[in-house]
């Protein structure tokens, strides 16, 4: 009963900050503020929204790791120290990494392009297909997540992922981040900063960091909204999905590769 009476108010409240934060600064240019004080989500996510990303590899600068560093900071990888007695070389390969930079070289022309690679948030995720417990799942708004309450750590998803996007936590974790809980024996990967999205923000940590560096190589937003920055950019520039031959329809697009 109380739930019912509160819904109208909650609906009103959850829309309020968004409406207040959207301002038209010039014809056709809409500024959407990412207020951290927006209300946390009170309604279930729906498929009306599909979060996605466009990465412009031409703008991705050499020797820049701003997106990787920002992701590490946002999701507590920077406070995740090497377990006692672990081999340093193994640790470097096995520590959790949600986003990494990849260099591709065209053998014919010798052209090298650099791009950030992370979970591609597929429409038909192979990780979800192979998961024996249903822990890997695709949320209604297109974010592919691991429910670590049901993950048994079998790592089938890591083998199934064509993008090598997932990490496994091998040892006990000393400091646990509040926004990205982490523990021994579970798989994890990029969440499109889902805690931000659920709290009314519309940017990811990597996107913000890239913009702060002045590169603006990452555009994030709602693929289903024709007015969103990412949808407009996708319409304007040629782009492709990595391994589109697999027909997974990833939510991350790349241009300039």
């Amino acid at each position, binding site marked *: 009963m109380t739930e019912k009476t509160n819904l109208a108010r*909650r609906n009103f409240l*959850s829309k309020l900050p968004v409406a207040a934060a959207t301002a038209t600064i010039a014809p056709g240019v809409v500024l959407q503020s990412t207020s951290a004080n927006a*209300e*946390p*989500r*009170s*309604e*279930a*996510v729906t498929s009306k929204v599909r979060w996605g990303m466009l990465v412009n590899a031409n703008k991705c600068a050499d020797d820049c790791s701003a997106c990787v560093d920002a992701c590490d900071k946002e999701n507590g990888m920077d406070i995740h120290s090497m377990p006692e007695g672990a081999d340093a070389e193994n640790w470097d390969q096995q520590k959790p990494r949600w986003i990494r930079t990849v260099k591709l070289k065209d053998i014919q022309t010798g052209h090298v392009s650099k791009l950030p690679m992370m979970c591609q948030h597929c429409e038909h995720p192979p990780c979800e297909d192979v998961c024996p417990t249903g822990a890997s*799942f695709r*949320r*209604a*708004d297109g974010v592919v*997540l691991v*429910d*670590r*309450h049901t993950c048994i750590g079998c790592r089938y998803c890591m083998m199934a992922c064509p993008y090598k996007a997932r990490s496994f936590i091998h040892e*006990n*974790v000393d400091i*646990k*981040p*509040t*926004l990205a*809980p*982490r*523990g*021994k024996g*579970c798989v994890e990967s990029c969440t499109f900063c*889902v*805690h931000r*999205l*659920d*709290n009314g923000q519309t940017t990811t940590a990597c996107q913000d960091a890239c913009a702060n560096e002045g590169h603006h190589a990452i555009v994030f937003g709602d693929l289903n909204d024709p007015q969103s920055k990412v949808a407009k950019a996708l319409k304007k520039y040629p782009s492709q999905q990595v391994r589109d031959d697999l027909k997974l329809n990833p939510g991350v697009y790349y241009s300039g590769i």
Partner: protein
Amino acid sequence: MLKSCYTSKLAAVLVLLMIALPAIAGKNWRSEGNSKATKAEACVAPVPEMRRNHMEMIQHQRDLTVHQGIRKTDNSLHGCIDCHANIDDAGKHIPVNAPGQFCSGCHNYVAASLDCFSCHATVPK
């Protein structure tokens, strides 16, 4: 005569135990220490309901949060920790799963394992 006296003594001890045990079991962990909860008027539900059903509430909420993204709630584990973590002399939060603290105190008493904190933070953010 001797036998009946023994029986009555035993009965008296039993009655005493029956009174004393619930009193120990009903120890009010919330009122000890200096957490926010000691100053709060009430928890998110009446205390008897919290004692019996807090795990159901947290488990239900975790599914809603992970799968549906609902984070506006009274029943989050984050909320429990925010309210029930005590502060030590140095002004730092004491983990809720440290010996004698709110979560572990009761869980140790009833010998129920506590798995939340192998992944979740034990002090407020």
